């Protein structure tokens, strides 16, 4: 008995945990096919309509919000990744005044509660007189994403042997060539990870966005507002799409990685 308990407990527990995690996603996905009118709470019947006409409800408000989120995410990611990578390299490779203080300050946005950060930023924008729109959202997102980029890329820079860059210089590479051909390719996995993280954080953010967005709608904001009167099934469609795309990306990376490892194993 004792043995069979040990044998079954772990799989059952893991299965339940996985199920628990998957239920909301499964619910979202299933209800994207719900033939609902306004409220998407009770099952009304199966339809592909919502997937086919995703941008047609409420004058395309769902798609508008979704597009805004994608745009903000992309711009904030590019800005935060560029700046954050440069900061990370500077902090690891160079000795300058206030280096450790800079390092410490970069941690603050991660430690500060989002409500405080959002409210503080909103107050600053108000006192400086910047109208709240897309730009203020992008600025806010870039600001908190930088911290995550710096932390991620810093670890990668620290593990990079400085002799590699020296070898590049020794082999007639100018500073720009050494960066482009050695430093950047070797940091790329870290930079990509940081960019993905930034995008996810920006796309997902509600609290800071809500304080600094003015009339501009983003996907999380739209969902939050419409939750009061019933989220349209089109939101489920978009959410499901994001989920499916993410799964495809992860699976592709894993499969190609495994294939590469097999090829390497065959070589040696």
């Amino acid at each position: 008995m004792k043995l069979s308990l040990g044998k079954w407990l772990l799989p059952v527990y893991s299965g339940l945990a996985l199920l628990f995690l998957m239920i909301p996603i499964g619910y979202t996905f299933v209800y994207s096919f719900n033939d609902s009118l306004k409220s998407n709470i009770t099952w009304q019947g199966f339809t592909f309509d919502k997937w086919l006409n995703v941008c047609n409800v409420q004058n395309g408000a769902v798609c508008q919000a979704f597009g805004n989120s994608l745009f903000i995410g992309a711009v904030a990611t590019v800005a935060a990744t560029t700046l954050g990578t440069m900061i990370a390299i500077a902090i690891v490779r160079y000795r300058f005044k206030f280096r450790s203080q800079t390092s410490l300050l970069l941690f603050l946005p991660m430690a500060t509660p989002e409500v405080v950060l959002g409210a503080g930023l909103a107050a600053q924008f108000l006192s400086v007189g910047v109208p709240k729109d897309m730009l203020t959202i992008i600025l806010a997102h870039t600001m908190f994403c930088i911290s995550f980029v710096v932390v991620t890329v810093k670890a990668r820079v620290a593990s990079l042997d400085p002799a590699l860059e020296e070898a590049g210089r020794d082999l007639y590479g100018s500073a720009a060539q050494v960066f482009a051909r050695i430093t950047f390719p070797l940091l790329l996995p870290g930079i990509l990870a940081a960019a993905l993280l930034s995008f996810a954080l920006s796309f997902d953010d509600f609290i800071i966005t809500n304080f600094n967005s003015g009339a501009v709608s983003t996907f999380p904001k739209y969902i939050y507002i419409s939750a009061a009167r019933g989220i349209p099934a089109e939101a489920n469609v978009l959410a499901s799409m994001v989920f499916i795309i993410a799964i495809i990306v992860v699976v592709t990376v894993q499969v190609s990685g495994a294939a590469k490892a097999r090829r390497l194993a065959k070589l040696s």
Partner: protein
Amino acid sequence: MAVGAFADRGADLELVGIEKRFPGFTAIENLNLTIPAGSFFALLGPSGCGKTTTLRLVAGLEEPTSGRILIGGTDVTTQKSFQRPVNTVFQSYALFPHMTVLENVAFGLRRRKIADPVAKAHEALLLVELDHLAHRKPQQLSGGQQQRVALARAIVNRPALLLLDEPLGALDLKLRRQMQLELKTIQDEVGLTFLHVTHDQEEAMTMADTIAVMNKGRIEQMGEPQQLYELPRTAFVANFLGQSNLFTGPVVSTTSTAIAVDVSGQKIVVPLERAHRLSGEVTIGVRPEKLTLHAAAPTHDAGRNVMGPGKVIDVSFSGVSTQYLVAVPGVGTLVVFAQNMAFGPAAHVGAEVWLSWNVDHGFGLDDDPADAPRFEADLDTKTIAQQRRSSLLTELEEA
């Protein structure tokens, strides 16, 4: 020489009054050094002696605090690393992990826009016998193969000067010996000037035409390996390059050809031309393999110094030779290497022995004995470097 062209031959390297200070310490002080074109020059010293800093200064990876660096007569002190006709084989090899072996080797050629970089890279890989692995990534190679790729990546550029930063340190003994000979062969073939930095005295003696022994940011002595070994100028050199038995004492008499030193009541003679200090307290020495063991007091011979009696306190057999430690009252412990010409040791632990050596084999040091009264021999080194060199050659001939 323009960076866009191959050096047709090695170039002289000249360091003039080089000084390098880091915050808190001075790595190199007033270093003057000329390395003639086409030579194999070794900078030998313990870690922290400034030898790697010297190499990095020549490569342009560090800037000297003062002084000038000339390569082939051209002042390169203010040139950046990528503008100098110099290539380095790094201690960690520093192969680019994201490129294939071939791309690693072609890297320098591509940066200088030299025609047909791939074919030239293949040629260099053929030279180090690794062309069949050209499309592998560096991490798929063994340590010795990586070392050869690093070497190919440097020599493919035909630099006027090749810098080697302890490149053989990570290899096992057998591989290291193969690489030593390979390096030497390549140097003969391509005629480059090699500057080799190492803490391995045996490696320096085997490979270099000229050795400079560095200590605390200065060159203690420079010369051919044999000259440095047979006639060290300072106690540091005497002990860093092989082992030495050193004694201190006052000069008691001087003739036209030799000085006599009183070492705890025993009179030791050193020829004038082999002594650096001729009066007062001096430090003199003799190499362990120059000593002969005697079971009884040897008869007086003007051509030989005698010391003893002493007591054998340790015997260790190492194949070709046997190492004896002999404690001589008032003098200290002496190391003796004896070739194993017959079976069995010449003396056992506890035996009373006398030691003698040819007067011409002693040397007198330049050190002030007050600074360094008695230097303990480095007992970790098992056999002397010269034996290593000859055994290495025979071993590789047989292989």
